[in-house]
């Protein structure tokens, strides 16, 4: 092997056609990146430009210098490749900036507000400092809970119908299409729908927590259906056939064999759906409204929720405004924590219990 390698590596011809093109060394991008950083810093130090503007100039400097240097040494095609690579990574950086800034902002503004009082008091008769978000937290849990109670059975059963019974008949095709449409319904339209529905029974100006649950389930059902459908399709047909061969009726096969096999995935989907709707503001603003007091009854009166609380405490903070706005950030931190917790638990579940696939 080694002799073969040596013979091929030796230049055989006249030597006018080199076998390797000259290449920039591996540290070239790092060097140019360091130069760009230096340019940005110089702009900040000597010309007094803002960090955003100098950062942008530094990035442009990198995007310009790297391809020029590369095309001088490596040729045009390679230079285009390097330009594309740098553009991709800049897109990545640009997309990460808001995420980092948002997380930082919520943590730095929200953490000082969090206290035992903030989590256990409501806003009744609070003017200025003090008060808390207890009423909003329970409101969020009650409304999201009722939404889950409505959407999970409907969503899972509809998913079962599509996979196990649908078999491409007309109802199944229509439902598949409508589920697609439902995933695209703007949340505020769901809220208006709930209002338009409840107004018929309860008269104009109706506000109740359960209406919010109905609106949220319009948004939640399609996610649950999709998750169920995908999980049921993963269940191997052999399992079903084995069960039929033992003389088990189809409905027992579904409830005792198919569903348990795919339960982890379905629970993951449900939790992601819960996390998604727990942060919805617009429908609750319309049908659940806002209040300063505790309300444990979803079927009467206005009910406060975390997102609506955030909205009102920031846009109508009262005088002086600092305290209301601080409470908004505190509530934002609590809301994000709840949503993230659901997300993380869902992902952990799917990681530990999902059927092992090829990759």
């Amino acid at each position, binding site marked *: 092997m080694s002799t073969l390698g040596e013979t091929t590596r030796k230049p055989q011809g006249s030597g006018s056609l080199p076998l390797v093109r000259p290449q920039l060394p591996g540290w070239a991008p790092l060097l140019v990146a360091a130069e760009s950083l230096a340019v940005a810093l110089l702009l900040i130090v000597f010309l007094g430009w*803002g960090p*955003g503007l100098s950062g942008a100039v530094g990035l442009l400097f990198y995007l310009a210098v790297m391809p020029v240097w590369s095309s001088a040494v490596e040729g045009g095609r390679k230079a*285009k*490749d390097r330009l*594309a*690579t740098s553009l*991709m*990574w800049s*897109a*990545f950086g*640009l*997309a990460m900036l*808001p995420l980092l800034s*948002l997380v930082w*902002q*919520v943590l730095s503004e929200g953490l000082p507000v969090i206290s035992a009082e903030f989590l256990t008091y409501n806003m009744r008769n609070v003017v200025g400092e003090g008060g808390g978000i207890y009423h909003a937290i329970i409101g969020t849990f009650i409304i999201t809970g009722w939404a889950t109670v409505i959407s999970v059975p409907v969503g899972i*059963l*509809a998913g079962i*119908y599509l996979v196990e019974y649908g078999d491409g008949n007309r*109802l199944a095709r*229509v439902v598949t299409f*409508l589920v697609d*449409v*439902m*995933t*695209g*319904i*703007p949340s*505020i*339209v*769901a809220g*208006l729908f709930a*209002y*338009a*529905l409840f107004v*018929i029974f309860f008269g*104009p100006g109706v506000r109740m927590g359960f209406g919010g649950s109905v609106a949220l389930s319009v948004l939640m*059902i399609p996610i649950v259906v999709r998750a169920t459908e995908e999980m049921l399709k993963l269940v191997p047909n052999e399992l079903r056939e084995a069960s039929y061969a033992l003389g088990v*009726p*189809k*409905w027992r096969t579904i*409830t005792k064999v198919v569903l348990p096999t795919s339960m982890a995935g379905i629970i993951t989907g449900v939790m992601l759906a819960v996390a998604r709707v*727990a*942060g*919805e*503001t*617009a429908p609750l*603003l319309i049908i659940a*409204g806002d209040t300063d007091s505790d309300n444990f009854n979803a079927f009467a009166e206005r009910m406060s929720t975390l*997102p609506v609380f*955030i*909205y009102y405490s*920031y*846009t109508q903070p009262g005088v002086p405004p600092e305290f209301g706005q601080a409470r908004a*950030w505190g509530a*934002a931190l609590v*809301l*994000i924590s709840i*949503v*993230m917790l659901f997300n993380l638990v869902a992902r952990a579940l799917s990681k530990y219990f999902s059927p092992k696939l090829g990759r």
Partner: protein
Amino acid sequence: MARRRGDVVFRGIARAAATLIVLTLAGVAIFLTLEGMPALTASAAQLGQDNIVLYVWPLLFGTILAAVIALIVAAPLSIGLALVISHYAPRRAARPIGYAIDLLAAVPSVVYGLWGIQFFGPRLVPAYEWLEEHLGFLPFFEGPASSTGRTILTASLVLAIMALPIITAICREIFAQTPRLEQEAALALGATRWEMIRMTVFPYSRSGIVSATMLGLGRALGETMAVAMVLSATGVVSFNLISSVNPSTIAANVALKFPEASGVQVNILIFSGLVLFLVTFLVNFVGRWIGARGHVKGAR
């Protein structure tokens, strides 16, 4: 084959659940129409305009303007981001990056609104002043630049950040499905990585990218809270992106006015909601249609 009673019952229940979905969507259309109808005969005094079309049109204009600008920003970024995850980042880094993007999708919209109004908007003011000074001859940057940063351009940028994870998630899946052999063949012929992506990944996923963008557009059209909080709206029709006089959007207008609305005002807002529903329905429908057409071609 004789049907067992349990089977009949269970099948019936599943069928009922599926039918309920059809009824719900029909309900959305029917109830919105029922409650929106009185708006058609609302008097000029109640509307603040001569008729309902003049009332809805500026809102529709603002909705589409904000969503389209958001897409112009978000679509290229998402494609780049999706390529980083599927082709550029090392395997081990790609997973955490994907998670980070999913986190971006999980942040509630009201928190984006909070961030946009207090942090992002004010930070953009110097940029708007610069745009007014240097590009003021373009109608978009005519100014006078807003001093709070609560402009339609800020709202669009926040919408872009919100649409980003959705478009990225779909693009990333499609990019990852590009036939491995085609990519390796391109590389074996001496293509650079960018040439490989241009010759194999993009042609394969073109319809998927368009479909993903349409779905992102549908999302941006219906997004409410971020716009309602960030935008200081006056309800004009204007292409001036950086001034303090901005068009409003349908969703934001409903969110801002509904809590205090009564009587026929409510019907007017519901009617505008119906218009929004139809527009997003259309956009989503076209998006899905393009996506489905692409799949058939890809399956061959």
